[in-house]
């Protein structure tokens, strides 16, 4: 059994082409990354965001002589380590990372030999290929700041955004580069909304005729800041593969063919249906497919049944549960998410599918949540999307009685894992799927109660300084309309904590505020508290 590459980082950047299986959607994404308009890729872990960034980078390098468009790949994955007392640390760190990555990429491509003036400016001093530049030193100092948060870091060599743009422009002119394409991976930390806001602000500010910013983010990233507007400032593209597409299984098999040994490929050919079950179970995520295939190389029924049960009942949840340890402030939200999926969503869908299959009808893996569901519930669903347990399939979907909400699809492997014999029924479930069948969860579903009760208790718990700080912030920080804000003042709810403590009934006392608006206002307050918990 060959060792599979589960992560793009394990593949040499110039070899990604060997493992690339191009689908029509992949081509659209890569073309979008290469063209002038900024693009943001959205997808959960393991769906192939990094891979597509690397393929775009490789293609741009190969076309460089003709097109003169220079790609620079960089990752912001270490941003979570930033703990210095510099209030602008994240911005400084991002600018330092971008500047030094550009210089490194140019050096590596042999574009910089003799140091140009603008290159020296970018690097914050002299550069050679061997030693870290001053900027890299600054970035590293920020990354190490979690060890000694109080040590001051001198960020004076970091260029301001406008200077960076100018330096890139000058560098472009000197090196005959018509445009730089920044491919920023792991761009915004899912649990740090402030970082998300700063990133998107920089993303927008960096836009110029000679720079195109592209980024890969997780589905939970939703804080875009004051200036960045998702629809206007970038093309948002989802990397999710459509399991309903006619060529879905074939496409997933071709990904495997790039890595598997002949014995495994022979087994896949002979047990095509079993492989299809693994492919569907992975729900479009190549990493999940490769992991499960590595666990069942014979592809026979007993192996597939065991793998589907083991992996999708426990292994896939391990990462989700680790998040609860890492971000203990989110523990309740994360744990509730798992409980909701395992005890509400999956049993409900299974029950229905059992009946549908008996009656030879279409099947389901979908559920719908009302747009006015509480913010913490949405937060829990976002975390589930981040780990790939769920995929947000479409928003603005009409359900019963014309109510509007978001449709999610549950990871099919999780659904298959509760079948008594996954190989007996999973294929039929997958082939019969239709988004039209979805279980609905309204704005006030009973299943939300346990989490809402917990969130209600948050202010009563011994809070740290930062929590108090959040709760003491004026309601003006909340993302509400002037009219809504004035209603809060009318009710004497002046700070975030007041709103959080207020019941929806209390909010409804105000003139002209109905149940739904009351819920929205409360959601905004809860979001502020969650932001604290994220830090």
């Amino acid at each position, binding site marked *: 059994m060959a060792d599979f590459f589960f992560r793009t980082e394990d593949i040499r950047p110039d070899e990604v082409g060997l493992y690339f299986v191009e689908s029509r959607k992949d081509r659209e994404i890569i073309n979008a990354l290469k063209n002038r308009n900024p693009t943001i890729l959205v997808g959960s872990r393991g769906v192939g965001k990094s891979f597509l960034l690397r393929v775009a980078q490789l293609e741009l390098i190969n076309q460089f002589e003709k097109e003169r468009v220079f790609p620079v790949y960089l990752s912001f994955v270490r941003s979570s380590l930033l703990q210095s007392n510099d209030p602008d640390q994240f911005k400084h760190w991002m600018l330092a990372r971008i500047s030094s990555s550009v210089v490194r990429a140019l050096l590596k491509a042999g574009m910089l030999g003799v140091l140009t003036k603008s290159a020296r400016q970018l690097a914050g001093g002299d550069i050679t290929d061997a030693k870290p530049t001053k900027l890299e030193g600054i970035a590293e100092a920020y990354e190490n700041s979690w060890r000694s948060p109080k040590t001051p870091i001198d960020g004076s060599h970091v260029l301001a955004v406008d200077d960076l743009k100018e330096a890139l422009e000058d560098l472009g002119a000197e090196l005959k580069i018509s445009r730089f394409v920044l491919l920023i991976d792991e761009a915004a930390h899912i649990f740090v909304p402030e970082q998300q806001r700063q990133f998107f602000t920089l993303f927008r500010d960096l836009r110029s005729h000679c720079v195109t910013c592209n980024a890969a983010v997780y589905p939970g990233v939703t804080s875009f800041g004051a200036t960045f507007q998702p629809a206007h400032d970038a093309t948002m593209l989802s990397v999710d593969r459509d399991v309903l597409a006619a060529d879905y299984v074939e496409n997933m098999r071709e990904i495997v063919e790039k890595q598997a040994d*002949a*014995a495994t490929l*022979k087994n896949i*050919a002979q047990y095509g249906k079993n492989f299809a079950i693994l492919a569907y179970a992975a729900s479009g995520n190549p990493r999940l497919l490769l992991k499960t295939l590595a666990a069942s190389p014979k592809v026979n029924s007993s192996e597939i049944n065991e793998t589907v049960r083991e992996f999708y009942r426990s292994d896939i949840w391990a990462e989700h549960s680790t998040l609860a340890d890492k971000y203990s402030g989110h523990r309740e939200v994360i744990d509730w998410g798992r409980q909701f999926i395992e005890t509400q969503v999956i049993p409900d869908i299974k029950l229905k599918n059992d009946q549908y299959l008996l009656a030879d009808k279409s099947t389901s893996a979908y559920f719908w949540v009302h747009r006015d569901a509480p913010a913490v519930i949405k937060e829990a669903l976002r975390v589930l999307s981040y780990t790939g347990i769920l995929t947000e399939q479409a928003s603005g979907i009409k359900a019963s009685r014309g109510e509007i909400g978001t449709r999610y699809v549950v990871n099919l492997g999780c659904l298959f894992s509760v079948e008594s014999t996954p190989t007996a029924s999973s294929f039929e479930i997958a082939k019969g799927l239709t988004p039209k069948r979805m279980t609905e969860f309204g704005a006030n579903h009973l299943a939300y109660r346990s989490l809402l009760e917990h969130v209600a208790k948050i202010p009563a718990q011994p809070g740290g300084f930062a929590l108090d700080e959040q709760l003491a912030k004026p309601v003006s920080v909340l993302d509400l309309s002037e009219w809504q804000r004035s209603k809060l003042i009318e009710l004497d709810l002046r700070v975030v904590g007041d709103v959080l403590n207020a019941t929806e009934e209390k909010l409804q006392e105000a003139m002209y505020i109905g149940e739904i608006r009351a819920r929205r206002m409360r959601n905004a307050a809860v979001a502020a508290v969650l932001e604290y918990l994220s830090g």
Partner: protein
Amino acid sequence: MSLSIHYRTLLGLSTTAFNDLTADAEAMAEFTKSHNFAAEVESLHAAIATRPEASLLVLATREYQFSLYAAAIGSYRHAHISLRLFLELVLASIYFSAYEIRLRNWLAQTNDSDIKWSVLSDPENGVFSKGFLSAFHPGMESSGKQYLAIATTVYRECSEYVHGNMHTHTQTDHALKYDGETLRAWASRVDAIRLCVIFAYAGRYLSLLEAEGRNQLEGIMVGYLGHLPAIRQVYA
């Protein structure tokens, strides 16, 4: 040591290696399965024996026998080298069947008539390509890509033994000696090659065979390719 003693020693080592193989029941079962494939190739040959390219299949069968023999005596590199040549010769016979002029040039050893793997495995025009399969057995063309991937992978794995990639230099290279792990890896490559050889053969000949020939191959075809609707249809 005289030459004759040296070679008798090697023969002795070969005997020991084969005895060790027969003592490993599980590996012996794998080996026997591989051995039996030779009989299946002979059946494939019998059904097309009168065709001009059938002589290549005879050469292929002989090469496969060498592969079996090398595997039996613990000479695994040579087992892989012959296995790769077997795959090339079978696919070449199928390819040449569609281009008789190239077959005649090859038989006559005309310049530039060598068998090239890149030609046999060409995704657009090779024996697994859509065009080739749809011309001779419509219905199989949609699976060609998958079997080409198997053929390409197993060819590459055998080539690693031809080129002497580092991982192929096992302890057994230094002395003829039985090695269960390498034997099983070789047998699993035989499995993969069997599958793509039978697929390519079915794609080229099955729909053209007379009923008698087709029926004689039913066990092989349904046994290995029964999961393909196009094959089931032939025997429905």
